[in-house]
């Protein structure tokens, strides 16, 4: 069910992305940081679902609030002439790799268990 909605959402998203007129370059900076924050939330969600402590509220709030705060920080950084968005990217991407590591290890474990089943028993 969830996979189906993900596929539908992706297809509709691609279509929508092509239909929406091109945004100005100055705004695309904020959108980029929001995308990174959202991706971080998504990977965090996947990781937490693997750990069996997935909470939809936490996921949704993380998805939106992180994105918005990242954009606000970017804006603040631009006003202050400090590249705060770099810090946000480091945090988000670092967490993304963390979560990816959790996901990777989970599936590695799963695969090796399957292999082990066949070999040892």
């Amino acid at each position, binding site marked *: *069910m*969830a996979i*189906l*909605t*993900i596929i*539908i*959402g*992706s297809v*509709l*998203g*691609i279509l*929508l*992305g*092509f239909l*929406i007129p*091109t*945004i*100005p*370059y*100055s*705004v*695309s900076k904020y*959108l*980029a940081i*929001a*995308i990174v924050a*959202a*991706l971080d939330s*998504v990977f965090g969600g996947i990781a937490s679902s693997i750990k069996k402590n997935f909470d*939809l509220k936490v996921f*949704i709030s993380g*998805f939106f609030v992180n994105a918005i705060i990242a954009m606000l920080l970017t804006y603040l950084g631009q006003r202050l002439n400090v590249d705060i968005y770099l810090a946000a990217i480091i945090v988000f991407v670092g967490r993304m790799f963390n979560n990816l590591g959790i996901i990777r290890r989970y599936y590695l474990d799963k695969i090796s268990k399957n292999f082990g089943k066949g070999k040892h028993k």
Partner: protein
Amino acid sequence: MKVKVDKQKMQMAIIIGIITLLLVSSMFIQFKAVDKSQESNIESLRSDELTTQIATYKSRYEETMEQYEENQNTISEYKSTMDENKESTNLLDKELNDTETLLGLTDVQGEGLIITLKDTNEATYTASDLLTLINELKYAGAEAISINDNRVVNLTEITAINNSFIMMNSDSRISSPYTVKVIGDKSYLMSTLNLKNSGFVDLMRVNNLEITVEESKNVVINKYSKEITAKKMKEVE
């Protein structure tokens, strides 16, 4: 219970779908924006590229500036040359003007005398009287002379036609009364004309001719009305 769980799952799936939609669409919007900006815009360039470009533009700007200054210098040179030319033109103009004034080709004014000569019943003025008068005036430093508004220039001749007419400047007939206008130092002119016994005034009065001499602070003398041309003479080289 099972239905409730399904409902929850459904809800979750829909929310995940919406989030996917949001994420993917925003990603594609961003891809498009970045692609487009990379095609054309200077804004999309990385900072080091921008730095080199700025350096290039700066050097170009400096070159252009140098050239501009050079051009400006050339322009100012030309301008000064032009001014010099103008000056020489002005000088030439002034010289020409002066020459014309001296030749009698311009209207002139200045202090001088107005002499009126009138024939009487006993005697008439002759051409030689006028010549004598003009000679005397010239001797006294007259700068411009006219008789009955005919300018006396260096080519002017005064000859008698008959008893009552005198010819002047080739075709001007003049007759009594003669008004002779002179520009020059008026006291000098006056004293020359009024010399006792040998002065022009006395000589004429002795001959029973009428003569009045008036001083004026501003005598106006018209220009010579004809052209002065040289057909035969040439400058010796």
